[in-house]
């Protein structure tokens, strides 16, 4: 088995390899940002060396999906996951593995000596193995980043739909950000549910924080208004900015039958009148 050379190199010269590698890594990574310190780096390189030595001893070939590489894979997944959370870029994460090549190849050359054929063969095997390990790291890194993005998206969706009770029988829903179909669906459902729970008569949809209104957004708003009417509640749209009013008229969207107000205060005053409440000033 040709892996034997690499395995013996790893076993014999492990300490020197790790030292050279850690030095290279520390030089390659941007320091001073406090994202990862020397002790942590040394721990990671040490752990990797240990696992690689074990794996290289037992494994045949460079197929890292084999069972012998499982602990190594798990370790790398852990490393790239933590790198993703610490805000490293993908190339910085990949450098962790690829910077191991230089010291390893040097050691291999020393071990093999002048036999060019064997050296080429050994180098190729080591490259194949390290490349697949590096790719695996990047893949995990990517996945971790996607998970972060997905979680943030979900959180944003939850954050963006607070239904607040303004007065007895009056609900308000301040909408912030661009409205798409998925968001409007969530908004509509949570608002209707809240109307049932609180028995509100009037709901105010505040679109002050909505940057643009196109035909699709207007249609979504109309749907919400209609659904509220079917349930027996009234809907007032407030926070229509001048540009949006112009856009709506230019687009030819028919908002007749929908009460609109320029700001939330006016909408609240109207809602109070509709519910029969009065305010003393």
């Amino acid at each position, binding site marked *: 088995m040709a892996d034997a050379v690499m395995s013996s190199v790893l076993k014999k010269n492990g300490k020197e390899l790790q030292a050279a590698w850690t030095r290279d890594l520390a030089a390659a990574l941007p320091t001073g940002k406090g994202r990862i310190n020397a002790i942590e780096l040394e721990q990671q390189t040490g752990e990797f060396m240990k696992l690689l030595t074990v794996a290289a001893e037992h494994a045949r070939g460079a197929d890292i999906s084999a069972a012998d590489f499982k602990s190594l894979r798990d370790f790398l997944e852990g490393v790239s996951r933590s790198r993703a959370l610490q805000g490293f870029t993908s190339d910085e994460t990949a450098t962790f593995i690829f910077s191991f090549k230089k010291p390893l190849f040097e050691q291999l050359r020393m071990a093999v000596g002048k036999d060019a054929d064997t050296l080429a063969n050994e180098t190729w095997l080591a490259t194949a193995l390290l490349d697949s390990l590096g790719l695996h790291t990047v893949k995990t890194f990517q996945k971790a980043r996607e998970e972060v993005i997905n979680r943030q998206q979900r959180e944003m969706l939850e954050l963006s739909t607070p239904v607040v009770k303004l007065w007895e029988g009056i609900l308000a829903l301040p909408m912030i950000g661009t409205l798409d179909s998925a968001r409007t669906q969530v908004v509509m459902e949570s608002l209707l549910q809240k109307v049932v729970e609180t028995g509100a008569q009037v709901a105010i949809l505040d679109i002050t924080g909505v940057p643009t209104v196109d035909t699709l957004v207007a249609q979504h708003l109309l749907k919400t208004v209609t659904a509220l009417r079917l*349930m027996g509640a*009234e809907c007032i749209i407030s926070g229509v900015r001048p540009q949006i009013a112009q856009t709506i008229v230019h687009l030819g969207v028919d908002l007749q039958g929908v009460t609109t107000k320029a700001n939330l205060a006016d909408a609240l005053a109207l809602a109070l009148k509709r519910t029969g409440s009065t305010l003393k000033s």
Partner: protein
Amino acid sequence: MERIPILRMGEFLLVTIQVDMHDQLALKLQDDLSNAIQRHAAKGVLIDISTLEMVDSFIGRMVADISGMGRILGAETVLVGMQPAVAITLVELGLSLPGVSTALNVERGMALLRRKILGVGDVTATAG
């Protein structure tokens, strides 16, 4: 054959739909209700659909039709207690039921009917 009961409360009629509506039942209700309005000379009809969880376009149209018939026979009709899911479904189906009065629950619906018939007070629930 099953049928939906129509209760008389003074000059109002109260219809509570508590079973899944199928087409035949809806047609039967339409028939029964128009006869009942005539017989009792009802001034107002309250249709409670708070337990109705599923609608299709046919039932949606039927509800609108019943409301229209009531109006022709001289009775105000109010639809009360529509569930959020039902409201969303009807809107997605393009059935916005124009001209149908709605209210959140039976109590509100009753108040709305009184106001409409006696013609006093501000109408809080919209009338399309």
